[in-house]
């Protein structure tokens, strides 16, 4: 075949087209990229751990090949899907509660502190 390629370097190539800047500080844009890539890695690790546990339950012993080719059946797929949903909701709690707060429109806590001091 052709010359070997550096798949690690090539896979990270940027897409042509100016990337929007979402935040005033570019460091925050970079940080988002890192944090959520890490979040995906933790999720993948959790899933791998689940695979190992399920296969040990089932067979008592496993090989790397078993892990790489594991395909959850329907029930296991749903359990793992639910676990991933719960994981996403944990790491995204701040964003989700931000939305709830927009709906609630609470007054500043000092208003309540002062009110309770008064009434």
């Amino acid at each position, binding site marked *: 075949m*052709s010359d070997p390629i550096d798949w690690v370097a090539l896979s990270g190539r940027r*897409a042509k087209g100016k990337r929007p800047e979402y935040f005033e500080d570019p460091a925050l844009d970079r940080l988002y990229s890192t944090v959520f890539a890490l979040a995906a890695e933790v*999720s*993948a690790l959790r899933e791998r751990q689940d695979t190992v546990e399920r296969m040990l339950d089932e067979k008592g012993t496993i090989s790397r090949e078993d892990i790489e080719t594991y395909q959850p059946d329907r029930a296991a797929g749903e359990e*793992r*899907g639910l676990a*991933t949903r719960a994981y*996403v909701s944990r790491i995204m709690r701040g*964003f989700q509660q931000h939305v709830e707060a927009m709906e609630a429109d609470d007054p500043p806590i000092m208003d309540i502190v002062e009110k309770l001091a008064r009434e």
Partner: protein
Amino acid sequence: MASDLPPPYTALTRHPMMPRTNHDEAARFNFLTHFNRFLSGGVGAGNKLAYANEVLPAFRAEHGRDPEHRYEIRDAMNQNDWHRMWSALKRNSMEMRQHNGRQAVLRQLDELDAMAEQYIDSSGLLELDPSVEQPHYQTAVDIHCQPGGYHSEERSGDVTVGANYDVGLFATTGGALGGLNDGGGQAVVEWAKKERPDWQPKRILDIGCTVGHNAVPIAQAFPGAEVIAIDTAAASLRYGAARAAAMGVTNIKFVQASGEDLSRWADGTFDWVQTTMFLHELSSKAMPKLLAEANRVLTPGGLILHIEQPQYSDDMPLFEQFMRDWDAFNNNEPFWSAMHGRDLKDVMAGAGFPRESQFVAGVRAVADPEIFPPSPDDGEEDFGRAAIWNAYGAWKPAEQAAAA
């Protein structure tokens, strides 16, 4: 409780050309699937709240009126903290999908290229034409933030971009396109069979086919027909032809050609001309040119059908238009906004399809509901990405030549 969970990545059908994902690559796609659902679901609603509670009141205070165009909402929302955070999350999700897909594809590119070559050589399903130029609207930016777009090569004759598109589409759509990512094509087939149960088209043209995931189900559903699937991008066609051959499809040919110039086909060659999620990848001048060519090669009595997200009409609230426009500015879809702002019926009429011959129908992805739950309905719609589309079409009048 868990019935609306997206299926695991491993539920995808592994046709022979599909890049093999290892455990963690599949798991990363699983994360992205859930992450995307999270962003379009509950927290997606934050955009509307931010607009109603903060952005709209501020706009009214400043201008003394409501926004009159989706771009005014966009300018204002782009200053809003919540919308910026949400957009950053969504953009990163797309970039991560591309990165994960490319790692999977590129680490096994030798095998994929070799396999593609074999399938192409033995099937004869591919016909490339190096004289076809890549149109500017395909090369101005890398569409969908896919590095290299749909046309570039990592090395001569490779299948990277096509393979990456196929391997990761699942994550973008949350599995809503079914096991072979072909829910769009299946939807077209279901519509056609219901509309005209006895219709047996003989020659079908699919314009802008990329990897043929929506053309193949048409070929499979009409085994007596010959399907010509065209695209300007050889890199996508190579993968598409190999994929179709690997799936055992023989009545399709992948041809490198531009929809703007169908001169190699005589007037009235095709019984059916199809585009699926493609018109928005064109440009203002290219779209009418392509539609006029489609009209020319379509036989009187034949069908033209376009699957797209709904056009923006005066009935569609400006805020919804703005949300549906997100991909145009954040996911490298530069014609998306202008295209959806058009009245497609006018454009079609200008290309020679009389208004009375036109129709609009709603279709949604057809996938095995046992494994692939449908796209979330309106309340949680992932604006512009849900597998729920409009079909804009026309049956070309038999007497059109006389009328024109």
